[in-house]
């Protein structure tokens, strides 16, 4: 038996013994943190067991608490988890965004300090990038950090900070070199949210939810040792981290949910049939809608294949320029998917709450509204098109 086969059997047995029954059903995902909340006791058990094994971050090195798995082993783990319907043990920007950047840019001490708590879900991280005056032109940011002794004093405001009101720490872009050209005066700083100088205020979105906040720094403090990637070298870290963020968001074009989850169970064609009726061949009766759904399905397939190809190209080490189009295409495609669902559902798609609408209908309406932000957050579609023009196609600036 090959090593991978052995690994598969061991993994299957371990999951069978350790994945609690409740965690094999669909449901919400734990986010951990100092004040971790669990919707079910099994969620806590599942997080602890997976965290101990490092399988919340399967491919991170063991020395930092990760699972130390190869890509192939990780694929097997994901397959085996999928086979029993195991829920992801932990949702975390630490895993999806900060961790990969730390692995690449942080010092050994920083990795040893910050990575293991991410793996075990002990620290909930949020991201402090955008400011009221710095969105697409992120590098114009003005939140400043001034060194006083062995700490930085931070003043300024961030906006669109996801889960700032729940997070324990923030990875933050701050201006440390006000005299330098704008890209060369930015540093990447880790700041504890639990201090008097930090306040947060949730923003209510069009979907009715408030995952985003405004975050204010008034003489907030952070130790000098928590600056990552070197003084005034933060833009390099920021750009790489944005790539991880964009990959995360572009996945939504494939999975459906407005915030990356798979909340809407029914496929687009099913929704079309259910709400717009079927003809004698069991096809969507409304020809105009059927055509749009078919076109969307074809593009879903083409996009899925392209993401697969990008994965293969990356694996053999060839740089894959196609990765640049993933965020742009995936999010625009996801918005269209929800527009088509609404088109099929008619008045059943515009309920807000209460009687007269099913749980799924209300969810689709909220998700539809949420998708509108997909092509804005993490760099707008226009910014992505700029990136493709300049980096991939080599079109000139001036």
């Amino acid at each position, binding site marked *: 038996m090959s090593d991978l086969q052995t690994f598969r059997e061991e993994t299957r047995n371990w999951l069978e013994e350790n994945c609690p029954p409740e965690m094999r059903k669909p449901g919400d995902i734990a986010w951990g943190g100092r004040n971790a909340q669990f919707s079910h006791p099994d969620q806590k058990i599942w997080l602890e067991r997976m965290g101990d094994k490092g399988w919340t971050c399967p491919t991170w090195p063991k020395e930092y608490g990760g699972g130390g798995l190869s890509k192939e082993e990780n694929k097997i783990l994901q397959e085996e988890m999928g086979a029993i319907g195991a829920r992801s043990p932990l949702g975390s920007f630490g895993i999806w965004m900060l961790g990969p950047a730390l692995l690449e840019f942080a010092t050994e001490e920083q990795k040893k300090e910050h990575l293991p708590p991410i793996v075990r879900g002990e620290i909930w991280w949020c991201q402090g990038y955008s400011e009221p005056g710095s969105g697409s032109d992120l590098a114009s940011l003005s939140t400043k950090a001034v060194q006083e002794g062995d700490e930085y004093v931070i003043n300024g405001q961030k906006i669109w900070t996801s889960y700032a009101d729940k997070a324990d720490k923030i990875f933050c872009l701050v201006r440390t070199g006000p005299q330098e050209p704008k890209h060369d005066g930015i540093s990447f700083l880790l700041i504890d949210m639990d201090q008097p100088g930090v306040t947060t205020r949730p923003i209510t979105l069009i979907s009715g939810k408030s995952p985003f906040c405004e975050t204010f720094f008034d003489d907030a403090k952070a130790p000098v040792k928590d600056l990552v990637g070197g003084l005034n070298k933060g833009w390099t870290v920021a750009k790489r981290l944005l790539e991880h963020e964009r990959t995360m968001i572009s996945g939504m074009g494939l999975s459906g949910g407005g915030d990356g989850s798979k909340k809407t169970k029914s496929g687009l064609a099913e929704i079309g049939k259910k709400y717009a009726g079927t003809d004698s061949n069991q096809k969507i009766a409304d020809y105009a809608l059927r055509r749009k759904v078919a076109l969307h399905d074809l593009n879903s397939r083409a996009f899925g294949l392209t993401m697969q*190809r990008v994965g*293969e190209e990356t694996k053999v080490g060839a740089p894959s320029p196609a990765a640049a189009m993933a965020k742009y295409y995936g999010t625009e495609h996801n918005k269209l998917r929800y527009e088509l669902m609404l088109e099929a559902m008619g008045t059943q798609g515009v309920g807000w709450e209460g009687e007269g609408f099913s749980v799924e209908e209300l969810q689709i309406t909220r998700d539809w509204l949420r998708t509108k932000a997909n092509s804005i957050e993490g760099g707008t579609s226009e910014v992505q098109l700029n990136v493709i*023009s300049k980096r991939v*196609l080599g079109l000139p600036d001036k």
Partner: protein
Amino acid sequence: MALILNEEQQSLKDIAKEFLQKNAPVTHFREIRDTNNELGYDEVLWKEMVNLGWSGILIPEEYGGFDFGMVGMGSIFEEMGKTLTPSPLFATGVLGASLISLGGNDSQKQTLLPKIVEGSLTTALALEENNRHSPNVISTSATKSGENYEISGEKTFVIDGHSANLLIVAARTEGSIDDESGITLFMLDPKTDGLEITKTSMVDSRNSAQVKLRNVVVSSSDILGGLNNGSGILENVLDRAQIAISAEMLGNASQAFQITLEYIKERKQFGAVIGTFQALQHRAAEMYSEIELTKSSVIAACNAVDENSNDLKRMASLAKFKAGETNHL
């Protein structure tokens, strides 16, 4: 399923690219067009393509072919799409080779396939009767008389119909005009009495012909794939045909895009290189994205042929859809 070329496939594509850019650039196509070349392609060039093994790519090794698969054939079509190279490779190397490989009995395969590989046989499929693609709507009839059949009807848009030395005709031997069953494939010498073949002049200057059949006599031993058995074979062959054309269209789109991209980096208006304008940059980035989607769809469809996938029909449609849409951006 691999969506990237392996080393052998990449090497085939590189050779095809180099050969076509050198020996059959767009100027070659224009020369064929502007000199009203009766054949519609250059025989010397075709001979060289044959020597490179291209006509035998889809033919099994036991019949002298190279069994290199649709991914390889698709790569060549993509490169030919960049240079607009006219050749019998589509009608012979894809349609004819596939029809005979998939439908022929052993003696037909033994006789005909090696000739395609060595370049002495070119083929044309006489299928369409309507202005819109409808491969099952066939009124051309084949009536049995003794050991022979008599075929009468009219075929249109027969690719290479006037230049091929073997015609494969789809005729109705049973059923009503749009029945899927009851279609039979017959192989005919184009010089047979009762055949009238007229070359048509098309907007793209590619080879196509109208074929009229009046009581054309053909032996029942020249049936390909069995009586009333045509549509099953045709279905698979048309999938391959759509995929080859999609690959060619991918080449068309990539090349047109490349030329445009180079041009907007040079052309100046309003005192600036026009490639600095965001309006053009965004259009270019969107086209790039669509071409990337097309590329993935085409190679996946080629793979579906080589892997005998159950999903072949859908993948062929996907490739054709994306390539067609992208070419019209």
